């Protein structure tokens, strides 16, 4: 890696931050908890890094810590996604006729 390489990576990072801010700012407050847990699962991508340092011929961390790093990262990935899916499944629109008027106003928003 050299300075040019570092600059390229920095470019990717900065652009991704801007994309992130743009996309996240459109998420309604209602979904902030699922959003947190979804982004939580996304940083579980560190599992890629964990596998790359642990599942090699001579892992630098030794066997025990190598298992631990893969464990922690996959706990993050699987737990994060399952809990997000569980939460999102609970968010339901209105259905009963008694609540139809409010549903109409909600529909108008979209």
């Amino acid at each position, binding site marked *: 890696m050299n300075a040019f390489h*570092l600059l390229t990576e920095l470019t990717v*990072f900065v652009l991704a*931050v*801007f*994309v*992130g801010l743009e*996309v*996240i700012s*459109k998420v*309604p*407050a209602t*979904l*902030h*908890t699922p*959003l*947190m847990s*979804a*982004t939580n*699962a*996304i*940083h*579980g*991508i*560190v*599992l890629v*890094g964990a596998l790359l*340092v*642990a*599942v090699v*011929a001579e*892992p*630098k*961390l030794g066997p025990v*810590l*190598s*298992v*631990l790093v*893969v*464990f*922690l*990262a*996959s*706990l*993050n*990935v*699987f*737990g*994060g*996604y*399952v*809990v997000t899916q569980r939460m*999102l499944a*609970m*968010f339901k*629109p*209105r*259905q009963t006729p008694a609540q139809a008027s*409010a*549903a109409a106003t*909600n529909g108008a928003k979209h």
Partner: protein
Amino acid sequence: MPEATAGSTGQLAIDFAYLVTGICFIMGLRYMNTPKTARLGNSVSIAGMAIALVATGFNLNWSTGWWIALIGLGAGAAVGIYAARAVKMTAMPQMVAIFNGAGGGAAAMVASAEFLKLNPSTEAVPLDLGITSVLTAIIGSISFTGSIIAYLKLQEVMTGRPIVYPGQQVVNALLALVSIAGIVLVALNIDTLPAFFAALVAAAILGVLFVLPIGGADMPVIISLLNSFTGLAAALTGFALGNNVLIISGALVGASGTLLTLMMGKAMNRSVTNVLFGAFGAVKTADAGAGPTSSTGGTVRESSVDDVATMLAYARQVIVVPGYGMAVAQAQHSVRELADQLEKKGVEVKYAIHPVAGRMPGHMNVLLAEANVPYPALYDMDDINPEFPRTDVALIIGANDVTNPDARNAPSSPIYGMPILDVDKAHQVVVLKRSMKPGFAGIDNPLYELPNTSMLFGDAKSSIDKLVGAVKTL
């Protein structure tokens, strides 16, 4: 050997797969802009993760490391899925904290492995790799230990109140200094190996100590901040490994966490620095309630279940204002039942959600969604505030500081300037509260002494269950 299977063409395919993963994550988050498409978004995100993991599989040395992957992945998946399925919705903040900490810890360990690969004890460490590794280790370990303390506080294994002691800031500053010194030494190639681990350990201790003085009501800020730290750590891991998918994903999470942190701070009218170093709610007791409205006599009107039931049943519009107390009492299902009964009688029921109600961003929304409250009935503060003047009853369930009119009226109040729900503008206010104990900020709430406020003391869940019964008979 991986070198043989993943030649330059193979590596190109793997990098392309990582690009697809990045796109999946961005689209997944984009779909979270409405509750309708949010589940699809999460599925897209899962697909992206799966693609990245499969692609990574081609770069691994399975012949020697298969059992590490098997045990690590198997145990992580088993524990993660089990915990995610078993956790109660009220315990969601601590669950998120734990998963967050796991990610941070993993990032710190990956960085350590990368650093060790540079043979720091015998060889000069390249500047860029050295700095990114040590930075990852620092931020990752702050996030790891900080999240564990946040978990212990939220789970109430340790007190949710701020823990303060003399010299706290000095100790924290010294630890931060050790970490910074570690970065400098690694950059200058002086004793890099001990410097790296000194920085890592100092950061881990700092993670513990900086969350200790944070009180429960400030948790939404801290959880968001820790989330953004782990994101940043994952991105930095990407720099250390030269892996774009980690950089992109980490940047997305970092941006999200930072945005939420700022939003939560804004919703409390406090800077993030103030949250981190203010130890809000530590020692202040009723001494701060000397605002103009609270000196109006100091008597509160206690009401009965039957009176409140009548008031609610004959209202045209009722706004429910939930707070952390509703979560503690597990009252969300009873609240929904009460709303059902009221709607049967033609009462319109809405829910007013303050951004920092609860222990993490959006906490109340998830609890009410769990109780099958349809999301269009949940209103943000800015949307619902104009409604209070034409609302017959504001029903406050376990919320306190976010309804305190001193935030609007009393410049001497510690929460002055914090945006609040204008419940005092409703025709009638009913407050469900365990006792007259002040809220988290330790300040009196003059709302309780207003002439149009009635108090209903007792456990929120049992009070609401009684209200449901009383409304039914009307």
